[in-house]
């Protein structure tokens, strides 16, 4: 089932940025990722959907080794991800990650959250880092909140700061692990709009989400996962109108008919 071929219309073909080959992962007895093969091209926006427990978050976290894998390989821009150490830290800086629960550094101001990695990892000067941070905060629409602490911001604002923090590292690819799942309904759109804009600007993105509207409008490809496997992948158009697998049909019937 995993070898379903996909015709992509927007993404360039040969330029492979993230390549997962034969990736397996267990949590105890649970085989949470089963022989995952997935290639993400530069500039492509891939939305991963599926029922809870299907392994989609684990897949997302495996791409920057926040979760280790048991077997298989993950390469980023041609380089395999090392298991630990300095080299891994360097590669992680090239992969932006946005979490469900924002995870902003609570003891630092919004501005400091966005400058920390630039100064400590990218070795930029404080002034340079702050300039870039302010520009990014403006871009995600929270420029006026720069001197506040995360706890003083709404969820939607915090998540936009988290996106700015990831972007500050000038990542090659951005991973979004259910970025809107912890948000109040009225704040979901402000975050999705920022993500839409990123997608339009050509950022390579892997987005785990339950937002089908976002998948339809921004994705180049939808990857449907269930029980640790990639069951089906297709363009959003194809996937939402004519899913091939019964598992996907069942999933879509449950979420779309309300």
């Amino acid at each position, binding site marked *: 089932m995993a070898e379903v071929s996909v015709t992509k219309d927007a993404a360039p073909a040969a330029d492979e940025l993230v390549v997962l080959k034969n990736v397996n992962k267990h949590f105890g007895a649970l085989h949470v990722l089963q022989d995952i093969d997935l290639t993400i091209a530069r500039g492509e926006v891939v939305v991963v959907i599926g029922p809870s427990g299907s392994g989609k978050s684990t897949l997302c976290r495996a791409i920057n080794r*926040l979760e280790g894998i048991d077997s298989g390989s993950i390469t980023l821009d041609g380089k395999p991800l090392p298991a630990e150490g300095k080299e891994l*830290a360097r590669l992680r*800086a090239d992969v932006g*990650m946005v979490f469900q629960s*924002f995870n902003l550094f609570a003891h630092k101001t919004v501005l400091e959250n966005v400058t*920390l990695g630039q100064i400590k*990892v990218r070795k930029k000067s404080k002034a340079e880092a702050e300039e870039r941070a302010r520009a990014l905060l403006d871009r995600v629409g929270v420029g006026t909140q720069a001197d506040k602490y995360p706890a003083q911001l709404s969820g939607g604002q915090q998540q936009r700061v988290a996106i700015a923090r*990831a972007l500050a590292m000038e990542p090659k690819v951005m991973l979004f692990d259910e970025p809107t799942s912890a948000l109040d309904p009225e704040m979901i759109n402000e975050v999705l709009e920022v993500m839409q804009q990123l997608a339009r600007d050509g950022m390579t993105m892997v987005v785990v989400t339950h937002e089908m509207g976002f998948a339809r409008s921004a994705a180049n490809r939808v990857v449907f996962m269930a029980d640790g496997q990639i069951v089906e992948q297709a363009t959003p158009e194809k996937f939402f109108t004519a899913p091939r697998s019964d598992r996907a049909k069942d999933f879509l019937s449950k979420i779309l008919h309300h």
Partner: protein
Amino acid sequence: MFDFLEGYDLLGSFWTTVQLTVFSGIGALVWGTVLAAMRVSPVPLMRGFGTLYVNVVRNIPLTVIIVFTSLGLADIFGMTMGAADDFQTQGFRLSVLGLAAYTAAFVCEAVRSGINTVPVGQAEAARAIGLNFTQVLTLVVLPQAFRSVVGPLTNVLIALTKNTTVAAAIGVAEAALLMKEIIETEAQLIVTVAIFALGFIILTLPTGIFLGWIGKRVAVKR
């Protein structure tokens, strides 16, 4: 009423107590933090060492440790702390070493409980932007951990202040040694004990109040 105190260096003895507290307090804070870092590190050997250290050291009576520094480290192994012929200085430095080594075990556990109050997600986010283990710890986790354990660390500091009296066991001229001397020489037990008790309260009470205020000020809002 206090005439009998003439000729005794009361302030000097308490000054030694303060110095013992400050030096061993700094040592314990540094070494205890390193131990806490070991206990949360990804390296099994370091975790094992940290756990072993804490469980051995905090279960040995302080008197045993202090006496060992003098009779064991100094007399048998020749660790005279750069003061071989000055018994007072040597005793002081050995006491600082023993007190710091002992108190570090308690600092470690306080800091480790503070580390556990920092949401795991923040450490993950820090790793995700490319920070290494030491950076994650020193830039993100520990600053928040310390803010949440000012209270427990204050307890450790107050206990340390009073524990310095054990240094009397190896002849360091701090408050408790002088108290013993006065009690043995003068017939003024109640007044003497009251004076020294008050002396320690004067040292520890403001410390507790001040650090309590600091703790509230630096608390991380979540």
